[in-house]
C-alpha cells in the first residue's frame, strides 16, 4: 500500500508544536551566535551552505513541486554570479549590489519566460529535460566565447580583493550574516509561495496534471510561473554567492552546478523544501572534504576530479534513497500516524 503524504501538513500549515518552535528559535539564535567561534574558512563554508540551500530550494520549487526537471537551472545561478561580480567591479557598495539584483531579476524573468515558452510546448519530462540541457550548454558556450564580458575560461575575479560591499561586509562574519539573513528570508518567502493557492495548483499538477487541467487550470501557465519564480530565486542566490566567492567563471553556468542543485534536493528529499538545507550542508561538506584531501595528497590525480565522487554518491542516492533524508522522515511520520489511526 502506498502512503500519500499530505504535503501541506509537512509544510507547517498545521500548528507547529511548542517543542518544535522552541528548538527552531534556539537553532536560529545559535546560528547568529556561532560565527564568534568559527575560523574564516569555516565561515566561508557556512555561508556557502546557506546560499546553496536557497539555490536548492529554488530548484525544489520546480523539481519537487511540479515534477519538472530543469537541466538548465545553472543558467540563472551562473548569470547571477556574473552579474554580482560585474556590478561590484564597477563600484563596491550596496547601491551597485541592489542594481545587480535588479538586473538579474529582469534577466531571470525574461530568461525564465523564454525558457518556459520553448520547453512547455512539448510537455513531457523527457523532452523538457533534453531541451533545457541544450539551452544550458549553449548559454555556457556563449559565455565562454564572450571573453570581453565574461573573461572566458579564465573567469572573472572581483577586483577589490579584500573588501566586498563596503562597509557592511569587510569581514567574512559580515558575509556570514548576510547569507544567513538571505536564507531565512528566502525560506519564508518560498514557503509562502508553496502554501499559496498557486503553490497548491503546482502540487496538483505534479500529482495529476490531466486532472488539474480538467479542473480548469491552465497548467502550462502555472508551470511557467514556477519556472520564473525558481529562476528569480536562483538568480538572486547567484548575486549573493558572488559576494562570498568573489569570482565568477563558466563553471557556475555549467551542468555541474545544475547537478549540484539536483544533488542538494535529492539528499534532502525532493518536494520537502527544507530538505535543501540538509542537502546543501552535505554537498558543501563533501566538496570541502575532497578539496582538503586533494591538498594533502597532491600525488593522487583522481582526487582532482570531485565530480567523480559526487556523481557516484548521486547515482547511489537515485537508486537506493530516492526520497532523501527529509522525505524519509516524513514517510516514517506518515506511517506512524497511519498506525495511530487504526
Amino acid at each position: 500500500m502506498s502512503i500519500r503524504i499530505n504535503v501541506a501538513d509537512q509544510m507547517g500549515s498545521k500548528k507547529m508544536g511548542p517543542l518544535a518552535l522552541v528548538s527552531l528559535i534556539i537553532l536560529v539564535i545559535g546560528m547568529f551566535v556561532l560565527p564568534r567561534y568559527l575560523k574564516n574558512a569555516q565561515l566561508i563554508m557556512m555561508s556557502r551552505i546557506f546560499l546553496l540551500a536557497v539555490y536548492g530550494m529554488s530548484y525544489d520549487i520546480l523539481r519537487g513541486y511540479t515534477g519538472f526537471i530543469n537541466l538548465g537551472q545553472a543558467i540563472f545561478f551562473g548569470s547571477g554570479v556574473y552579474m554580482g561580480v560585474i556590478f561590484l567591479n564597477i563600484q563596491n557598495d550596496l547601491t551597485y549590489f541592489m542594481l545587480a539584483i535588479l538586473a538579474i531579476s529582469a534577466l531571470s524573468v525574461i530568461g525564465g519566460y523564454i525558457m518556459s515558452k520553448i520547453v512547455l510546448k512539448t510537455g513531457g519530462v523527457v523532452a523538457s529535460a533534453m531541451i533545457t540541457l541544450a539551452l544550458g550548454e549553449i548559454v555556457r558556450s556563449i559565455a565562454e566565447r564572450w571573453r570581453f564580458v565574461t573573461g572566458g575560461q579564465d573567469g572573472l575575479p572581483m577586483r577589490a580583493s579584500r573588501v566586498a560591499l563596503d562597509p557592511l561586509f569587510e569581514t567574512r562574519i559580515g558575509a556570514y550574516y548576510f547569507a544567513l539573513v538571505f536564507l531565512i528570508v528566502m525560506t519564508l518567502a518560498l514557503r509562502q509561495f508553496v502554501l499559496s493557492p498557486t503553490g497548491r495548483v503546482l502540487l496538483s499538477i505534479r500529482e495529476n496534471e490531466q486532472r488539474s487541467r480538467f479542473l480548469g487550470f491552465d497548467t502550462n501557465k502555472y508551470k511557467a510561473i514556477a519556472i520564473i519564480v525558481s529562476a528569480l530565486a536562483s538568480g538572486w542566490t547567484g548575486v549573493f554567492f558572488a559576494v562570498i566567492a568573489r569570482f565568477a567563471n563558466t563553471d557556475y553556468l555549467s551542468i555541474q552546478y545544475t547537478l549540484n542543485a539536483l544533488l542538494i534536493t535529492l539528499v534532502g528529499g525532493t518536494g520537502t523544501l527544507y530538505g535543501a538545507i540538509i542537502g546543501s550542508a552535505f554537498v558543501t561538506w563533501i566538496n570541502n572534504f575532497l578539496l582538503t584531501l586533494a591538498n594533502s595528497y597532491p600525488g593522487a590525480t583522481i582526487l582532482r576530479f570531485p565530480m567523480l565522487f559526487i556523481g557516484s554518491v548521486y547515482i547511489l542516492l537515485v537508486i537506493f534513497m530516492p526520497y532523501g533524508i527529509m522525505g524519509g522522515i516524513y514517510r516514517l511520520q506518515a506511517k506512524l500516524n497511519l498506525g495511530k489511526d487504526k
Partner: protein
Amino acid sequence: MGTLITLIVSGLAEGALIFLMASGLSIILGMMGVINFAHGTLFLWGGYAYMFSYYSIRARVILSVFPDAFQTGTQGGILRVTGVQLQAGQYLPFSQELLIFVVSILIAVSVVFIMGIIFEKLFISRVYGNAPAQILITLGLQVVFTDLVRVIWGPNMIPMSRPPFLDGVSSFAGGRIAHYNVFLIIVGATVAIIIHRVITKTRIGMVIRAGLQSPENVQALGINIRKYFTVIFACGAALAGLGGALYMPLVGNVVSSAGMNNQILAFIVVVIGGLGNFMGSFLGSIFLGLMGVGVAVFLPAISVVANVLVMAIVLVFRPDGLFGKAVNKS
C-alpha cells in the same frame, strides 16, 4: 559551384556523424522509452578507446618494422600514449594501415558495447517506466564516466591524425573533397540502411516493435523482452561509440568536452525529428550537418546559437517535431 560542393560534402559528413550518435539515442528512446543522458559519455569512450588502441597498435607495428622511427613523446593520464613519426620516405603498406584502423574501430565499438550492457544491467533496468529517475541516473553516469576519462587519459587535448589512406583531398568539379568526409558519408548511409532493414525486415525488429506496443503480450509469448532491451541498449551505445571513434580523426584531436557537445547536437536532432522517430532523426541529422557547415561559413557570428534557434523555432510551430513523435511518453 566548387565551394558549394565542398560545403555539401562536409555538411553531409557532419550529418553522418551526428546521425550515428542520434540514431542510437533515437532507437533507445523509441524502442525502450528510455532517454539516455549518458550517450555523450559513451561517444567519448568510443573516441578515447579508438585513440588509445590506434596509437598503441600503430606505435608497436611501426617500431617493429622501422626501429629507427622517431618517438614524439608521451601524453595522457594513467594510460599514456606515445606518438611515433615515420622518417621521410618510410611508410607502412596499405594493408597494415587498414588493419590497424579497422582493429582500433572494432576495439572502440566493443568497449562501448560492453559498457552499454553494464549500464543497462546495473542501472537502467532498475528504473524502467520511471522517466525522472532515468534522466537523473543517466545524467549521473554521464558526469562520472566523463570525469573517469579525464582521470584515465588526462584532461588535456590529445592530437589525433586521420589514417594515411583516408587523409587526402581530391578535386571534383572545382570543389575540394576530403576523402575522410566521403568515407563518413558511406559509413553513415550503410549504418542507416542496416538499421532500417533490421527493424522492418527481421524477427528481432518484429519482436522489438511488438514489445513497444505491448510488452506484456510479448512476454506472454515466451519471449524475454528484458534480454532484447539489454541488446538494444548496447547496440545504441555501440553506435555512439562508432560515432566517437570516427569523430576524433575528423576534428584532429581528442578532448573530453566533445562528449557533451555532441550529445547536445544529438538531442537537438531527436527533438527536431520527433522523439524516438528513426526517420526523423536521420533527416534531422542531415539537416543539422548541412546547416552547421553553412552557418559556419556564411554567418559565423550565430554559429553557436544556430542549432538551438532552429530547435526553438521547430518547437514553436511543430511541438511534436518535424516528423512526429514515435513514443507518447511523458
